């Protein structure tokens, strides 16, 4: 039975195409950036360990957000409430302050995830609509909370510890990202829950008729996504030293792009976690290189968009060629 055992596991160790393409793009971005700095400043800034650690430090927040986003995209759903889940988690936590604040932030993530999951799994509202509504509700709630005057917005000790501090030069945010990643990889590859997520993403009716409790699996995925979002939001507030309105807004598109660039099918069912990590690193480096090149905001946006579309094109062509 050993032959069948290895056969069943084989796909986990093969390298798939989106990941190769992602790595090639990352090398390309670094090469272009390095050529630029060599020419203008005479240094290879982009290849210095300091610079790369700095990128990972701030990139970890996107990494954690995208990790959660991947859980719902695998089911063929999406969570558009991520920006304000991040923001609300951070704002609630700072407004209350202390350990109670930290717990309140996490509690908010839990609540948002449960409501999203309930709406999608039980009320059968399309996730795109339900979570978009949820995002707006959270926005309204936060405006209500802050009233005209700003509440306390300084990061709690825990948030600063996670978001801003380092140990032996290693940013805690990166450690947090690694821990979240390890947990999710474990769920996806080793547990029945993970298998069921892929099954639902591929063919929900077949999964249901196989006796999978599909509603609970959907709830679990939204829960993981919202928890990731508040963890990212709270540590991001630690990094910026405070929580502020709309701080999560710039994370929505990149988090979805990172997942899809990493090879997860937007329709669900297929994709590997390592791809999402590559997608995050790619987006973070791209943004940073464009920053350093001091390109005007308008051009920066255009290049950013074009690179993402170009990558998806290459990836898409490869996939059709496969058949």
């Amino acid at each position, binding site marked *: 039975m050993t032959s069948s055992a290895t*056969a069943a596991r084989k796909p986990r160790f093969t390298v798939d195409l989106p990941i190769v393409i992602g790595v090639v793009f990352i090398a390309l971005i670094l090469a272009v950036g390095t050529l630029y700095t060599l020419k203008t400043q005479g240094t290879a800034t982009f290849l210095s360990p300091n610079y790369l650690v700095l990128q990972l430090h701030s990139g970890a927040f996107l990494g954690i957000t995208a990790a959660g986003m991947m859980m719902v995209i695998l089911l063929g759903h999406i969570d558009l409430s991520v920006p304000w889940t991040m923001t609300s988690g951070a704002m609630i936590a700072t407004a209350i302050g202390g350990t109670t604040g930290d717990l309140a932030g996490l509690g908010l993530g839990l609540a948002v995830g449960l409501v999203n999951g309930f709406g999608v799994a039980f009320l059968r509202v399309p996730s795109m609509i339900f979570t978009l509504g949820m995002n707006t509700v959270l926005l309204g709630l936060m405006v209500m909370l802050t009233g005209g005057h700003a509440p306390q917005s300084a990061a709690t000790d825990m948030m600063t510890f996670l978001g801003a501090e380092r140990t032996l030069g290693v940013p805690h945010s990166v450690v947090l990202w690694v821990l979240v990643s390890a947990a999710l990889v474990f769920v996806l590859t080793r547990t029945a829950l993970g298998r069921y997520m*892929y099954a639902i993403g591929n063919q929900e009716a077949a999964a249901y008729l196989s006796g999978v409790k599909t509603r609970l699996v959907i709830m679990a995925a939204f829960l993981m996504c919202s928890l990731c979002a508040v963890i990212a939001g709270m540590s991001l507030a630690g990094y910026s030293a405070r929580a502020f309105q709309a701080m999560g807004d710039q994370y929505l598109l990149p988090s979805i792009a990172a997942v899809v660039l990493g090879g997860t099918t937007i329709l669900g069912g297929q994709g590997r976690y390592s791809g999402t990590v590559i997608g995050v690193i790619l987006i973070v480096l791209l943004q940073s290189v464009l920053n350093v090149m001091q390109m005007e905001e308008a051009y920066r946006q255009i290049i950013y968009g074009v690179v993402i579309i170009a990558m998806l094109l290459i990836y898409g062509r490869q996939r059709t060629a496969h058949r």
Partner: protein
Amino acid sequence: MSLTPAPLLEMRGISKSYGGVKALTDVDFVARRGEIHAVLGENGAGKSTLIKIAAGVVTPDTGTLAVDGAPRAFASPQEATGAGIVCMFQELSLLPDLSVADNIFITSPPRTRLGLIDRRAQRRRAEELLARVGCEDIDPATRIRDLPLSRRQMVEIAKAVGRDPALLILDEATSALTAADVEKVYTILHKLRADGLALLYISHRMHEIEALADTLSVFRNGRRVDTFAKGAHSDDAIVQMMIGREFANVYPAKPKRAAPPPPVLQADRLTFSPGLNGVSLTVGKGEIVGIGGLDGQGQRELLLALFGVLAGVGGTVKIDGTARRIGSPADAKRPEIGMALIPEDRKTEGLMLPMSVAENITAASLGAVTKGVVIDRAGEADNVGRMVKEMQIKVGDLAAPVATLSGGNQQKVVIAKWLLTKPKIILLNDPTRGIDVGTKEEIYALLRRLADEGAAVVLYTTDYAELIGCCDRVLVMYEGRVTAELTGEAITETNIVSAALNLAAETAA
């Protein structure tokens, strides 16, 4: 007569494999103008692959293809259509929310000088085409959604004819047609043949081939076994060619019973709207109970209701004498109930097609190999290996998507998935539909073996021969009720048919 003209389509040495499984091996195939060529074979014999290669949907691994003597390599279905090869696939390809006319001209609508769609010309040409296929009664402005299935199939034929084919491929074109429409299709096909078209016809219905084909080709295991003129071989000889051995003793022997077996599943006055008007049934240990009747008399609803899929079912269900509420398939799977359902459509309800064979086999039984929250991979692989061997699933690579298997092997995967849950009650919804004869036989033998080992089996099938051959008892349903129960010698085609038509009640009234 100096030279015979080159055949319209000529394929030489075609081979194709999917994920290590050979679908076609070194096949030569020729289709000539003015000829209806029937392609026969079990599922998985390679017929679909052959057609897909001719229609440009699939590229062969090796081999050449020539149209009118000129070598061609189609990179897309469009190129094949350009060369005059038009294919009507088994699955209906019409868009339900567009009109009949829009669908017929979906790829090349007539245009005005400005390049806009010329709706009037489109309507007129749609009317012409519909008239050509004998369906003047279909209004081109009707939405496809509002047409019954058999009419849709006629629209599909009109659409194919509208592309002006030189070679028209019909894959199970009559499977959804009513008898009157089948006649029309025959007329159309004969007319097209007279016009000099080449026609490839794929069907499982022997009498259709009798009525239509000029030439027959038989495929088995990815090879073309023989090509011959109609009438050269008897039906029996053809069937034997298809399965490669004598076709006898399809059904295993039924056991003789002195007393009725202890009941495992007892359902009392199940109601569901629409479909079930108070259905009661009892299935004993070791019994195979068939559900028969005309299509759509509540048989599907009965199985789904038992399995907990339908919400709002009235009545009671007892398992081993204890009343149980089954609210979902997850409930039905619990060990104290131990129910399994082989669903109607394996592609959408039975399998996760892109996932691996191994993952599909264990999809319903992961709980049994999970320690804490972790899946025990060795235990899972053991189960998969055992099932592949036990069910004789032909598979090259267990990690390959289950979609790469043939229909019969896919169905075996669905059954294997449920056998791993060790079910006491097995419900099957037309499990042999679209499956080759060989696999059917294996499934019959398996059902009998499971029953002998103590399972209670409920088999719904549209094939009367299966009811007669497989079942210890047959319940015939009519308008959401069980109208007749046949046992032993009384299970005959005549009895089933008259019960299905509810003749007894009709004459009594």
